């Protein structure tokens, strides 16, 4: 099963459960307070998923390591490499 199919299956399952519960197709009598929560639930989920995504990406951008040391080390090694290679007869 492709990842696309997995997603479609998951969404279809959740969607139909939600539809069945909100429309009362199963003949279940839910208390009205439940129905009030259930009806806008997909919108809530969508918004919280979006918040989670933004929060995670934001946090990861903020904590992305800046490898200053690695860059400095590389620069000094480049000098060393040039000198050594020139000594070995390399023409740059």
């Amino acid at each position, binding site marked *: 099963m*492709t*990842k*696309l199919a997995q*997603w479609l299956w998951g969404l279809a399952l959740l969607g139909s459960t939600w539809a069945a519960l909100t429309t009362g197709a199963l003949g279940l009598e839910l208390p009205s307070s439940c129905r009030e929560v259930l009806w806008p639930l997909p919108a809530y989920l969508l918004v919280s998923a979006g918040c989670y*995504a933004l929060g*995670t*990406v934001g946090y*990861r*951008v903020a904590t*992305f*390591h*800046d*490898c*200053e040391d*690695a*860059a400095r080390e*590389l*620069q000094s*090694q*480049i000098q060393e*490499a*040039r000198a*050594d*290679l020139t000594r*070995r*007869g*390399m*023409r*740059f």
Partner: protein
Amino acid sequence: MASEEASRSPRRSRREPEGRAPRQDKYSVLLPTYNERENLPLIVWLLVKSFSESGINYEIIIIDDGSPDGTRDVAEQLEKIYGSDKIHHVKYLISSVLLRPREKKLGLGTAYIHGMKHATGNYIIIMDADLSHHPKFIPEFIRKQKEGNFDIVSGTRYKGNGGVYGWDLKRKIISRGANFITQILLRPGASDLTGSFRLYRKEVLQKLIEKCVSKGYVFQMEMIVRARQLNYTIGEVPISFVDRVYGESKLGGNEIVSFLKGLLTLFATT
């Protein structure tokens, strides 16, 4: 192109005996280049340093894509400097494109296939020749591979002490965002999909390249996704990625669009 296809015949895969005796492991570094005359001597020097300090059996294979900037001259000088040495070994290959310099640049996959034909190691290390990947991490890759007997060890910028240098905020946001979406959609089991600093068992790389069709950033991503499909194991080592010291780094609108296309293709087909 035609000769390239023809020489991809399966008999190649028989050269490496399956039941490996306790002989020493050998690591072949494949360095695909295009206009890297500035960086090539430096990366080779760093590789030689890293390998000889840790006493690893290795070879370096430069696969040039017909660069017009004199990369070839530099590579031949390096061959002379290091090639004669008993321990060191630098091989320089001219990609078939050299014969037809006007032809569009070939994909990385073609370069790897070409390089692997000449590789004598049982492990292959692929990395960029532009100094963004530092050879000091290779001994860590090797340690990691032995530790978990992994089929692939991938460098990662997104975990542990991994990181980048020389990226502005926009670049970081794009990178993190793309990585997040990819992780959600593909659940690939590796944190850095677009990176190209990796160690493969030779036969694993051979198998994967046969399966992969995409180009550019997506190629590296597809390699990992296919690896998962084929149940290969993947280990990860945090790396620091120092963006191009010489030359330009490329990330334009085109790259982003083709990345998204590739991502969706993999999403729908794997």
